[in-house]
């Protein structure tokens, strides 16, 4: 039994870890000619370039990416929590249609939507602006958030709100002191994954942002074209930091709630 578990565990670990090995090696290499398995010279040039003064563009990209993802996530939560609550708690005519309306933006490629919206955004002065890019990210971050919050509310106990109401608590107090604390783990997961979704967008940002909104993925593509492998590898590693943080947090939440999350 134990043996079988190891036979399963080590190949999986190796397969999952494999893509990160060349990224780590390239990011700390100064010289790595072909047949050598390991770099001939190690160094921190790439890191100095990314975080130092010369890499100003990359730091700006980091800032833009973060700001875009944060704003998108906040708006998604503001509109997503009420909608998720309605879908999780209630049955109503037209629920199937609402579900379809929410499913399509998650599944239909964002490039089709972005191409259509671009001309409209251009006329409204939203193209090549921060707001415009937030709006295109909202197109799929908002439905995604609603799906997470929907899941949270499908096993939500309304009795606590009833008790607070019978004790005379006003509506806003019920929202902020009963509902939000109860669904906080779910909200944090929704926020993290909406952040990640916006953070990893490439093409829709490029179409609507038109080269003005140089986010990290856009810079990463141009670095790949320029062929500076150590810098591209370093930016790739910076790019997966939020993903890794999200993973740690959701693992932490999972630890608290046991296996309820996936059952």
């Amino acid at each position: 039994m134990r043996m079988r578990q190891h036979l399963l565990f080590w190949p999986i670990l190796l397969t999952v870890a494999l893509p990160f090995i060349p990224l780590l090696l390239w990011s700390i290499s100064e010289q790595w000619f072909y047949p050598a398995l390991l770099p001939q010279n190690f160094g921190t040039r790439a890191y100095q370039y990314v975080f130092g003064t010369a890499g100003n563009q990359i730091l700006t990209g980091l800032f833009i990416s973060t700001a875009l993802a944060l704003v998108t996530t906040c708006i998604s939560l503001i509109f997503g929590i009420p909608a998720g609550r309605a879908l999780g708690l209630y049955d109503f005519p037209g629920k199937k249609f609402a579900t379809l309306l929410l499913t399509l933006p998650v599944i239909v490629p964002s490039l089709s939507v972005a191409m259509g919206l671009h001309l409209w955004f251009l006329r409204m002065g939203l193209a090549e602006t921060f707001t415009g890019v937030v709006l295109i990210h909202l197109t799929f971050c908002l439905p995604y958030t609603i799906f997470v919050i929907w899941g949270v509310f499908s096993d939500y106990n309304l009795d606590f709100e009833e008790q607070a109401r019978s004790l005379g608590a006003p509506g806003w107090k019920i929202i902020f002191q009963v509902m939000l604390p109860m669904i906080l783990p779910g909200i944090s997961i929704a926020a993290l994954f909406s952040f990640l979704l916006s953070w990893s967008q490439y093409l829709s940002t490029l179409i609507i942002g038109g080269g003005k909104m140089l986010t990290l993925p856009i810079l990463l593509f141009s670095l790949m074209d320029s062929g500076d492998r150590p810098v591209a590898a370093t930016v790739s590693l910076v790019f997966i930091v939020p993903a890794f943080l999200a993973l740690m947090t959701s693992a932490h939440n999972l630890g608290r709630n046991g296996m309820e999350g996936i059952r």
Partner: protein
Amino acid sequence: MGKTCSKRKIVDAVSTSSGRGRKTSFTRLFFLLSPALIIISLLFGGGLALGFLQALGYLPGQGFDQIGLQYFTHVLQDPDFFNSLGISLYISITSTLIAAVVSVILALALMRWAANNRAMHFILQIPLTAPHLVIGIAALFLLSPSGLFSRLFSQLGILTSSSHFPLLVNDRLSIGILTVYIWKEVPFITFMLFAVLKNMGSELDEVGATLNGSKTQRFTHITMPIIAPSLGGACLIVFAFTFGAFEVPYLLGRTYPMALPVWAYKNYSDVDLLARPEGIAIGMLLAGIIILAIVFSQLLLQLSRNRSFSL
């Protein structure tokens, strides 16, 4: 488990109908739901509708006199369209099928030998959150003729020069693209199946065993029917995603024929402004194929459900 959790909700949405809840007043529902639904309809519905108009030749200021199917017919008559469609279908169908088979085996293995192994579950979640772009770059560093594998084989004396290494990126069979997609999607499908298997418990399987069902019989008559809806839903999402995604085929694909999304964007961003409506038309065809796939699979599901009810 957030991503799995929410994706499961989406899988539910495309595979089964879930909903047992209370009733409430229309006004309350309206206040809760309408802001979000209006934003989504405007941005998503509006985006597709405007895209469709532009693909029909509408340009603001020029009026509607150029409206017609000329861009669509032009795209559909272009042999490149069918080459691109072919390569995109090949990539998404192959990666979805391989990922599905691997996931069924992996989910059953996890269920049997590692149902409560925390470390294993954590490791399997890493591919869920890693962006496709980064994994595409890593695949380039690993699989290209001067990549890590080529270096490894030449150190081992198997290769004499990098030109002897088989072409695994920008190649005819799209090995690099398939590898990235399978790496990314296997954990996703596996977690979907694992959740169902865990809910199913072992009772049914034990009943099957007492009735002298062989391992294969129990798999085809007990396990498969139970996991089928989730497997179908997850595969549909994977298919739709891999069919419409741009980054990975752009990084790891050949310059000809291009995957459909790459070809759409190439036309869209062409310096020749006449190519732009054609690019949008390809984008609309892309969206149309995916919506058709969803509708078709829903109908199929409905049909099989009705049949099993009548039996």
